[in-house]
């Protein structure tokens, strides 16, 4: 069989446990492959500033401030043991797609923790990210920068995955619910039970790592299917907590949120992602668990 080094070596970076992968964001920065999620931006003080297309429709100037590796947080540094380091990870919800940064649940948690700790936070979230990518990036962060004191991940639906296209010889994010038709073959072959098994095992391994390293690890989801699956193993996974009535999607839009001056309170700028009200409620839920 010709399953040899050359095929794998082309993808050395993504296969390496030390590489933090940001496939979606890299697509954004590559003008040839632009998915038009963002317009062009500018670099300033080692950060990249870029507008968000959807929010611009509302004539509000919302900028994403991205670090050198394309993540919406400070540039990564080795974990400072004198500080309390929190690592957040997830998909577009935790990235804060079409939402001002200060409304993110991550920011609210950090704000609360900062009342009695010197907190350093990082956000590894990627738009379209899968559970696998979320977890493997956490591993790569740990390998490169050290062990955070607290890791909190908010997971998307379990059918997303990182898959490999033998035609292009590249890995790509497969998001079945929103995938373009050209990925239909990959979606058709997808067996969600297999993804669940991988995800559960990875979660358990990361949980064991955090326990042995003296760190805290928490995981939840905004997705109904993922919640149904993971909650079956609630007794086996110490890291798991349910997000109660905060399952997102159409249900989040219907939830009653108090009036707020921000247009992003009830729903994000794209009319699809949860707004600041949801983030505030989720942050409260996390603080309850903490």
């Amino acid at each position: 069989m010709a399953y040899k080094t050359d095929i794998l070596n082309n993808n050395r970076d993504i296969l390496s446990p030390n590489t933090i992968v940001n496939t979606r964001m890299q697509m954004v920065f590559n003008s040839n492959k632009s998915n038009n999620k963002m317009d062009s931006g500018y670099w300033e003080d080692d950060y990249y500033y870029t507008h968000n297309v959807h929010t611009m429709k509302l004539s509000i100037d919302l900028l994403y401030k991205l670090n050198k590796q394309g993540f919406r947080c400070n540039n990564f540094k080795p974990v400072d043991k004198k500080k309390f380091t929190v690592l957040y990870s997830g998909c577009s919800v935790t990235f804060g797609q079409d939402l001002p940064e200060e409304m993110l649940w991550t920011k609210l948690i950090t704000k609360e923790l900062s009342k009695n700790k010197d907190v350093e936070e990082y956000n590894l979230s990627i738009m379209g990210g899968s559970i696998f990518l979320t977890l493997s990036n956490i591993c790569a962060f740990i390998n490169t920068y050290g062990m955070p004191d607290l890791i909190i991940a908010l997971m998307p639906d379990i059918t997303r995955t990182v898959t490999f296209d033998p035609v292009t010889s590249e890995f790509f994010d497969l998001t079945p619910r929103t995938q373009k038709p050209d990925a239909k073959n990959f979606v058709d072959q997808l067996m969600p039970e297999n993804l669940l098994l991988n995800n559960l095992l990875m979660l358990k391994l990361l949980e064991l790592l955090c326990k042995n390293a003296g760190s805290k690890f928490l995981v939840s989801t905004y997705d109904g299917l993922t919640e149904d699956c993971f909650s079956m193993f609630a007794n086996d996974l110490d890291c798991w907590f349910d997000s109660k009535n905060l399952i997102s999607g159409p249900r989040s839009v219907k939830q009653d949120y108090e009036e707020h001056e921000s247009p992003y309170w009830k729903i994000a700028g794209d009319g699809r992602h949860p707004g600041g009200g949801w983030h505030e409620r989720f942050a409260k839920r996390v603080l309850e668990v903490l």
Partner: protein
Amino acid sequence: MTLNINESIYKNITVFDHSQFHIKGVNGSMLTREGYWDNDYFYTKSTNADDITYKINKDGFRTDNFEPLNKDNLNILYSGCSFSFGQDIPQEFRWSDFTTEYFKNIKDTKGYNLSMMGASIHLIIKNICAFINKYGIPDVLVMILPDIHRKMIYSTYIDQFIPAQLNFYKDNTVDWMYEELSKYKENYIPQENAIVYLTMIDLLENIFKANGSIFLWSTWHIDSESVFDNFAEQYSSYFKIPTSYPDYTKKDYGNSDVKYWFLAGDNQHPGGGWNKEVSETVIDLINKRLKFGGK
């Protein structure tokens, strides 16, 4: 997309189920079904070597019954596929048993072998994870992995996970299994297994580092080797065994008059010679990492 969620299915995938399948002869009938229980162990003949009896513990593994790890011992956990299970060779010829015997001369040592015939890297890691959960983290973990092409896959025919691999034959595979494996082979993309396995191994390495325990792993399969060698620098726990498949089938290990020393009873799996050679490498690596040093 809907997910066939059945709580009992997932709950039942525990560390031991697949091994029990083998004993029950449901999947491949690697072990003969006939056997007897004696003092909490199940004794059954090897299919290709009638003079070898497998002594199987309560959970279906060829090792002592599992107990919570005694902190006063040097606890070593071994895992792998049929190569580490010791298919068609006497138990004392296994690399794991050579290693345990060596360390027993230095310190109170307890070795457990979690290997399973036909196991994938997937299942090997899952079982290690379950073992750790239940019995604690051993002082040393050594894995000798098979090819990366094997995987646990969900079968809609029986609503259970089954072990999948690329080498199977219509003659000795039940129809539904043949269809499932054919489907797996047709859609198989090695990179997808590689990325999952590399990440899981990385996590294991970090768990053992964080706990101050020793972790070592290698593979006997050249396809796996061709993948893992690329990342050898990033895994301090990775090592190479002296002789991979199929080179061991041509190597002179001496002791030619000793049965099962050159090859196992099926003339395919490695014999005691290869196992002894692997154990010498493993012992050397463990000694280098252990504080009390070697003999």
